[in-house]
């Protein structure tokens, strides 16, 4: 009797849960899963913007073409360099700022609000803002360094400079993300280990290495993984600042696929590339998910 009542309750729970989930799930299927399947199918066809139809099945030809494509490796290399450089520097700056912010009491809210600002600024505005500041003749940056007797820099003009300029702008835009997440982690650390270490005469530095870092590990890993995936998505600042150039210096993967689809007009081939990118991001997401659930 009791078990029957319990299973009745359970069935009710399940039915109610499904009822609540169904509308959202239906929309999710319609606007995300269905388009993704459409992209998967398109990747096996000769589907171009000149002939946008699934009438020529080409099997794996699009994938073969992607592998043969000379510049895809360049683009992947640029993406990897961009993601590693920006996320690592953001992490270093973000951690220093988080540690500093965690140790002050005065003006804490003031600093915190300033830190939040770049995160909320439209990426297009970020790109335009820095283009204006870094303009070779009319920008304030070159004027400022000329006061220090440094020759003007052509920030977006040559390959190497342009790459590091985009990295720098991304750091300006995103380092607060790291700072704020890591600060939340620092603020929730227990006090006892530090007090015990102080009694034993440990220095601040060894406290940081032996207490802070190990305790912060989960937060650090989550913050890094999230930023890695978000950095792979980067498109806006490249579109605004460099259009992938000069040459292929800033041709990161999102921009590369965008160009293949809307300038190369070959949606089939672009779909093949995006399916490959999807697999990479999915793998990272599954890793992140397993890590996040293992923390609970």
């Amino acid at each position: 009797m009791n078990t029957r009542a319990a299973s009745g309750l359970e069935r009710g729970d399940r039915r109610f849960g499904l009822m609540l989930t169904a509308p959202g799930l239906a929309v999710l299927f319609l606007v995300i899963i269905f388009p993704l399947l459409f992209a998967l199918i398109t990747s096996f066809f000769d589907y171009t913007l000149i002939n946008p139809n699934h009438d020529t099945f080409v099997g794996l030809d699009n994938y073969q073409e992607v592998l043969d494509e000379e510049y895809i490796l360049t683009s992947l290399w640029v993406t990897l360099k961009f993601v590693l450089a920006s996320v690592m520097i953001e992490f270093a700056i973000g951690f220093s700022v988080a540690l500093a912010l965690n140790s002050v009491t005065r003006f804490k809210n003031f600093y915190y609000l300033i830190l939040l600002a770049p995160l909320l600024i439209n990426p297009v505005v970020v790109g335009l803002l820095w283009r204006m500041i870094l303009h070779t003749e009319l920008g304030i940056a070159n004027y400022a360094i000329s006061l220090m007797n440094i020759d003007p820099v052509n920030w977006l003009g040559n390959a190497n400079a342009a790459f590091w300029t985009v990295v720098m702008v991304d750091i300006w835009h995103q380092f607060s993300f790291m700072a704020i997440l890591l600060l939340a982690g620092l603020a929730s650390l227990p006090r006892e280990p530090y007090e015990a270490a102080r009694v034993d005469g440990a220095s601040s530095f060894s406290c940081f290495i032996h207490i802070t870092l190990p305790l912060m590990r989960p937060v650090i890993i989550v913050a890094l993984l999230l930023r890695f995936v978000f950095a792979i998505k980067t498109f806006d600042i490249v579109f605004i600042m460099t259009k992938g150039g000069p040459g292929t210096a800033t041709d990161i993967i999102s921009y590369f696929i965008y160009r293949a689809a809307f300038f190369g007009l070959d949606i089939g081939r672009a779909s093949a590339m995006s399916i490959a990118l999807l697999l990479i991001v999915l793998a990272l997401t599954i890793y992140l998910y397993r890590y996040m659930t293992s923390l609970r």
Partner: protein
Amino acid sequence: MHKGLLKRLLPHVVLLVFSSAILFPILWMLRVALTNKMNAYQIPPVWGNPNFNNFIEIFADNSFMGYFVNSLSIAIGTTLIALPLAAAMAYSFARYNTGGLPLRLAVLSSQMLPPVILVLPLFSLFLKASLLNTQTGMIIAHITISLPFLAWLLVAFFEGDIVIIEQAARIDGATRLQAFLRITMPIMAPGLLAAGLLSFILSWNEFLFALILSGPQTNTLPVGLSSYQSHRGVDIALLSAAAICAILPVFILLPLMKKHLIKGLSLGAIK
């Protein structure tokens, strides 16, 4: 003694350096927006009397007003549709574990999806369904971002003490639906509002979908701003004024959601 002072000052030095690195470019853009067009180009900088002429000019410009209104209605439309759907989903994830791990993973993956992957099929499908350059199309596109974001974020909202209050209501004879609609939703309303504002901002700032799927009648502010760059190439005073207007609403909303921002940024991983 000196060492103690240094130790206390060092964090402030670090924070001041990075705070000014953040503030200076923003204030510089504000300065350019408030000068007249000739002074905006002077290097070394010329400090004239600040005035609001650039702001008056862009608001008198029909295309700018169009972008502004498009962005506003698309962001509001997206949030109004996505928020209730996501709240119901997140609630049943949190309370009844509906769909289990696979469904949660699907929602998280949707959130991590690079937009360029989705924009290709959406473009082809919208072309067939004549949804290119329509507000409906733009709202559909932005729901692909907002719905998974909100569903994932709100799960954390529905876990915690609220369960106890709900159980009390259920013992008093409330049905599951009543407990959800009459008890949980009102109590969670401030959190839902903050989440809704985050979703509004996601849509307001979104660029790639708008670039490809919107057209002359439906261009949003980010697309409008990016086109100013080529059309008026040199008019940085007007461009700065327009950019300030694009980021201002976000800063006005900031105090309302500051508390929930960390949860939003870390996708609920860090509270």
